[in-house]
């Protein structure tokens, strides 16, 4: 079995055994070394020589130091075929498709905003009619946290940051008139538990409309790090059980909805909560490893398992770090699939990813400046080779995006795609001495953190021990200090702050109590019309499956068919697994 050896050890052994063919000839390198030394000592000033390495400080940055200039000496061992190769070829550093964006643009997916199921249906159609190529459904807090709209906790929170979903009927309204076999649906379920509860409702809606499940394209998030580390909540289930639900969903979706991306390993929200770009990727990769190991234990071939696994990244301010990171993790994922899991299908090597521009990098002061920030983030994502992109609204620090800011996000994508011409050439920064050195450095750092996680017993154990919670807390405090000291410069906030800066009019949505009233009325009607004995039986089956280690997602599917609501199913999960308290309180 492959998992007995640490991932880092496996990859190091492969490296040691393989013969490298350096791109640069030793004689040329020797000459460069000599002239570089001469140049550095004569042309470069004392001050620049002493400050040769600087460490960029940015919000959610990785603090990786940079030289004043990069030369072949920084990539002296570069083996073109082993380290770079060609797009859609090993080791995939340069991209997963041979023609990248010449063949097909990335999916331009904007989050659909907040409101009632009817309102969001209109919003989805609005974005599609303006050229969006997929839908991206944000759920309201009650739905994300698995509460029904009529539970006391949902008071004041229904439809505030997304759309409320309690039962199958809500999905019927949201996707009315949208051809869900042609337009792919991203459903931002976040957690394993709400994926298990909410996604089967989507399937029942598709079933009722006559769409076979094997025709449905789309994705859910289904990430236990989101549920156990990133999420604030009233209650949690233990990480090992939540990880198991994550894998139950994967097994169910892989078998029943084969075109669906069953997990989006969510680096994004972890990083936005407060961590570096390196930790973001290390944790997502370690989760991928944990999934493949668990699925192997359940008897599934890695080639079969990995087919619909995707990642989700957060490009922030340090432009070249962001480009290099995407290239680095693409190569690392290939090496893991090839050498640890011995995958045979070339598609198994693909690190496919959705990217959303960083929200915490956006500021409340002078909000229009956020348009520029997000455009740089998006450009980095495209130069890094993303498959799918959401650009944040400039009003991020005020509210969920309004119609105007959401459309400007889409326009930013279209500008990069159609006007800048950066899409004409594959991996345009490949071969830059700087970008290649940074790519190598970041790949090493990600692998080192993966190794650290494996030494703690793998990701579910590392989370249960509080390793990640502590890392995030320490990161946040140090970042806050650097902002206050001015070490991290933020234009308009602590750098050239304009005390007279005016806030442009920002349209925010007031809380609409009527949406909750309508949802409550619908729930009452549903509970009166459905077969309540059948629902009770289905909920008991969820508890039993949870306790007995049967795949729980088949049970939530039956419960959705019978008309069980989200909150009812959440309570069944809590009964099955009990509660856990993350190590952040006191």
């Amino acid at each position: 079995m492959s998992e007995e050896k640490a991932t880092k050890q496996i990859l190091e052994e492969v490296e040691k055994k393989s013969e490298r063919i350096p791109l640069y000839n030793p004689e040329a390198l020797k000459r460069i070394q000599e002239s570089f030394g001469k140049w550095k000592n004569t042309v470069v000033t004392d001050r620049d020589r002493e400050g040769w390495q600087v460490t960029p400080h940015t919000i959610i940055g990785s603090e990786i130091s940079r030289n004043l200039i990069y030369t072949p000496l920084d990539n002296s061992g570069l083996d073109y075929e082993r380290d770079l190769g060609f797009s859609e070829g090993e080791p995939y550093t340069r991209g997963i498709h041979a023609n990248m964006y010449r063949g097909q643009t990335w999916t331009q997916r904007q989050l659909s905003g907040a409101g009632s199921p009817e309102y969001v249906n209109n919003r989805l159609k609005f974005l599609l009619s303006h050229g969006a190529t997929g839908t991206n459904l944000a759920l309201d807090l009650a739905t994300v946290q698995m509460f029904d709209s009529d539970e006391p906790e949902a008071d004041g929170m229904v439809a505030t940051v997304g759309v409320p979903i309690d039962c199958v009927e809500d999905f019927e309204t949201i996707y009315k008139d949208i051809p869900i076999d042609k337009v792919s649906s991203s459903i931002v379920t976040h957690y394993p538990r709400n994926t298990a509860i909410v996604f089967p409702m989507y399937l029942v809606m598709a079933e009722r409309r006559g769409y076979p499940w094997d025709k449905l394209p789309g994705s859910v998030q289904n990430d236990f790090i989101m549920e156990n580390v990133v999420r604030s909540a009233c209650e949690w289930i233990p990480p090992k059980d939540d990880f198991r639900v994550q894998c139950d969903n994967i097994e169910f979706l892989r078998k029943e909805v084969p075109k669906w991306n069953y997990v989006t390993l969510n680096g994004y929200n972890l990083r936005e909560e407060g961590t570096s770009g390196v930790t973001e990727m290390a944790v997502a990769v370690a989760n991928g490893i944990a999934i493949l190991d668990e699925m192997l234990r359940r008897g599934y071939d890695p080639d079969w398992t990995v087919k619909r696994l995707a990642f989700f990244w957060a490009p922030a301010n340090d432009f070249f770090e962001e480009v290099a990171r995407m290239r680095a993790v693409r190569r690392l994922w290939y090496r893991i699939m090839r050498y640890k899991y011995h995958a045979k299908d070339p598609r198994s090597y693909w690190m496919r990813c959705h990217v959303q521009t960083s929200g915490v990098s956006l500021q409340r002061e002078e909000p229009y400046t956020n348009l520029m920030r997000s455009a740089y983030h998006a450009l980095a994502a495209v130069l890094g080779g993303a498959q799918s992109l959401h650009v944040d609204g400039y009003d991020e620090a005020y509210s969920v995006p309004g119609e105007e800011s959401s459309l400007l996000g889409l326009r930013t994508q279209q500008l990069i795609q159609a006007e800048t011409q950066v899409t004409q050439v594959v991996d345009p920064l490949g071969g830059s001495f700087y970008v290649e050195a940074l790519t190598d450095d970041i790949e090493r750092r990600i692998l080192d953190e993966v190794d650290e996680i494996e030494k703690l017993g793998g990701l579910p154990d590392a989370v249960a021990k509080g390793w990640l919670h502590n890392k995030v807390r320490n990161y946040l405090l140090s970042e806050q200090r650097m902002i206050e000291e001015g070490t991290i410069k933020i234009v308009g906030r602590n750098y050239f702050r304009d005390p007279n800066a005016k806030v442009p009019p920002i349209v925010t949505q007031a809380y609409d109590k009527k949406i909750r009233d309508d949802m409550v009325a619908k729930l009452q009607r549903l509970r009166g019309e459905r077969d309540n004995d059948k629902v009770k039986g289905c909920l008991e089956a969820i508890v039993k499956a949870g306790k007995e280690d049967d795949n729980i997602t088949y049970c939530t599917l039956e419960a959705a068919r019978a008309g069980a609501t989200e909150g009812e199913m959440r309570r069944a999960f809590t009964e099955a697994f009990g509660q856990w308290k993350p190590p952040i309180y006191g």
Partner: protein
Amino acid sequence: MTSRQDKTKVLLAQFPLETHSRGAITVAGMLRDSGMEVVYIGNSLPEQIIETAVQEDVDVVGISTLCGGELVLGSRVIELAKEKGIKDKTVFLMGGIFPPEDEPRLKEMGFNAIFIPGAGREEIADAIKDCVTAKRKK
């Protein structure tokens, strides 16, 4: 020896369905660094927030909200504080993301200070000190 008079005790919480904790965790760390005692209870119903405030006899109740609910649940918190008789002796704060027009409404409701993204350690700690001093004088 630390007496009740010089160590300010702060309860930090979020509303029941809030998913974000970045702000609350950062502020908890900042206030501890500034020498305050922090009780962080995470997501809680307004009833639980006020119940804990009474039990722990805190000087300050701070609520972090990023996903809405500031008006509906904020007014519920203040109402309950009045019912339990702690409104006058306790400082109420709110921080997070909400529309600018909600700030005056929250103040009117009875929140003593409001913090928006970008508020730093000094701003928050100083505001707490000022509010606590003003309350104790009463």
